């Protein structure tokens, strides 16, 4: 699963900017909940392009959002923190976030709540998981314990991908200082592995296939092992928006839940929807791993667990109850 998260500094800047906006008296929420029953409500949704947006794409393509009275416009962004920034600006009403980003921005004072899953929760079977911890050919690493003294590529040092390696390493008896994370985008990881710049990487589909083709070996599926069944990503909205647009939020939640069930029943169509939005060929689309258990219910204990791990490794200071970071009717 392509999980991207933010740096603490980014979240702090966001919190400062949120205060600035509040001081300016510019509370942004352009969604219109007071439209007539027949008229579709326009909502803008920010997303990070990857294969698990399939339910969103399918919901737009096959009219599931329209059925629930919503006209959804998608905006592709580079990472979840940009999505949150766009929601704070008022140009987007809903957006994709990862659980570490959700916890991080809430801990920095931006009240953000999960409204629905993206296409379900983290699967419990490795065959359904696209995120792997791999070791470079010739690195001699065969288990997590072998990471001692090695360099590990990760997409963000505060992402779930990094967090899961930290937890697994601790379980294997490694201290946090005995290995080193190197931050880099997924596309650069296969080359970094084969050139010996890093000895291991937490890498996601489709880039993991390149790494394996070049001789990298899979050591673990950290997210399955630690976070099977967990809510690791979600579609979120700001509390201020939820407060003023309860019916739109309810419609969005219902639409995504219906779309998740629909995508599970039509997985080939779900993968085919990636062709347009991810700009890939139909053949490549069908080879994508949809990293989901198709369960649309947000898993609150798992959010608390991820927060506890973040506290243990110093990413956030304290656990905020998951119930305050999830829309009341979604939990």
């Amino acid at each position, binding site marked *: 699963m392509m999980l991207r998260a933010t740096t603490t500094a980014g979240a702090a*800047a966001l919190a400062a900017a949120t205060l600035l906006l509040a001081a300016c008296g510019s509370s942004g929420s352009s969604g219109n909940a007071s439209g007539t029953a027949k008229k579709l409500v326009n909502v803008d949704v920010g997303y990070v392009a990857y294969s698990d947006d399939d339910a969103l794409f399918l919901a737009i393509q096959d009219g599931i959002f329209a059925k629930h009275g919503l006209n959804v416009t998608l905006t*592709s962004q580079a990472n979840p923190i940009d999505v949150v920034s766009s929601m704070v600006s008022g140009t987007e009403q809903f957006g994709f976030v990862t659980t570490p980003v959700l916890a991080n921005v809430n801990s920095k004072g931006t009240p953000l709540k999960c409204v629905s899953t993206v296409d379900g929760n983290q699967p419990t079977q490795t065959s359904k998981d696209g995120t792997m911890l791999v070791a470079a050919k010739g690195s001699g690493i065969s288990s997590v314990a072998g990471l001692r003294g090695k360099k590990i590529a990760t997409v963000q040092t505060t992402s779930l991908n990094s967090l899961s390696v930290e937890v697994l390493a601790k379980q294997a008896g490694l201290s946090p200082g005995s290995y080193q994370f190197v931050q880099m*985008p997924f*596309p650069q990881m296969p*080359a970094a592995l084969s050139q010996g710049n890093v000895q291991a990487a937490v890498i996601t589909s489709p880039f993991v296939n390149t790494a394996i083709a070049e001789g990298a070996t899979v050591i673990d599926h950290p997210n399955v092992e630690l976070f099977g069944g967990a809510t690791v990503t979600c579609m979120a909205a700001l509390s201020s928006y939820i407060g003023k647009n309860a019916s739109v939020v309810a419609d969005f939640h219902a639409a995504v839940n219906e779309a998740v069930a629909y995508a599970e029943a039509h997985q080939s169509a779900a993968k085919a929807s990636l062709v347009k939005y991810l700009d890939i060929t139909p053949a490549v689309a069908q080879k994508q791993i949809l990293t989901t258990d198709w369960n649309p219910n947000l898993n609150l204990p798992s959010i608390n667990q991820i927060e506890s791990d973040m506290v243990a490794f110093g990413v956030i200071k304290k656990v905020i109850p998951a119930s305050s970071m999830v829309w009341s009717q979604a939990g």
Partner: protein
Amino acid sequence: MRVPATPARPRVLAPGSLARLARGGAAVKLGWRLAVLAAALGLWQGLSVSGVLRADEFPSMTSSVATLWHLLSSSVLWTAVGGTLAAWAIGLLTGGVAAVVAGTLLGLSSFAYRSAIPVIEFFKTIPVVAILPIALVLYGPTLRERYVLVAFAVFWPLVIQVIYGVRSIDPTVLDTARALKVGPVRRFFVVVLPSAAPFIATGLRVAAAVALIVDIVAELIGGGGNGIGVQLLTAQNSGPTAYPQMYAYILVAGLLGVLLAGSFGLAERQLLHWHETQRNIRLSHAV
């Protein structure tokens, strides 16, 4: 002025003949440029064919150029170019006009110049990427966010250029204009602006390239719209099969940069043909 002709000695390069070749006519210059371009493209293809660059890590020149050729006939590319150029143009225009006005006012007063220059130098060094999150929070991933960032990036270096341009005006000319009771507005258009024009033109030529980079980075990081940066981001996220597409858009960005810088350079030569700096350039070329 012409260099005395030397007897033609075909196939043998006499000392200095390379320099003469380099000074040759427009056709020769174009030929050399095309040769260097072909060599660069050939090197790229060679590295791909020999396996130094793996296809799933870096696409070959032929696949990237073929994808670019295919894109040239698609509306996606031209929509992307239009989207990127819109933010570029609005940002450059607003940032440019603000810089010329502020730079002129600061340049005409030594006191104002000395007071403001530390602040300007400070803002000039702030990387636009650092303020991008704030722009994103204020405006969202919109056209406005991108042109505000472009205007910000363009304003600071250009305002310094304008200040230096205005301060380099011959004081006698300004005093003469004042003595002849030329009003401040007319003085600005007739004396100040033409005298500072070469500085402004150079600043604008550099700013045009900076504006394009900032615009594409804002799209790539902030997202939104349908410009070249967003197409790059989409291709990057799509995995190795979309790499030719990704590099095709990188080529488009590069070509756009060359075209914009070239057209600003051409406009500079045409509009400022009367100025001594341009006359000197033409004289040195004529040697």
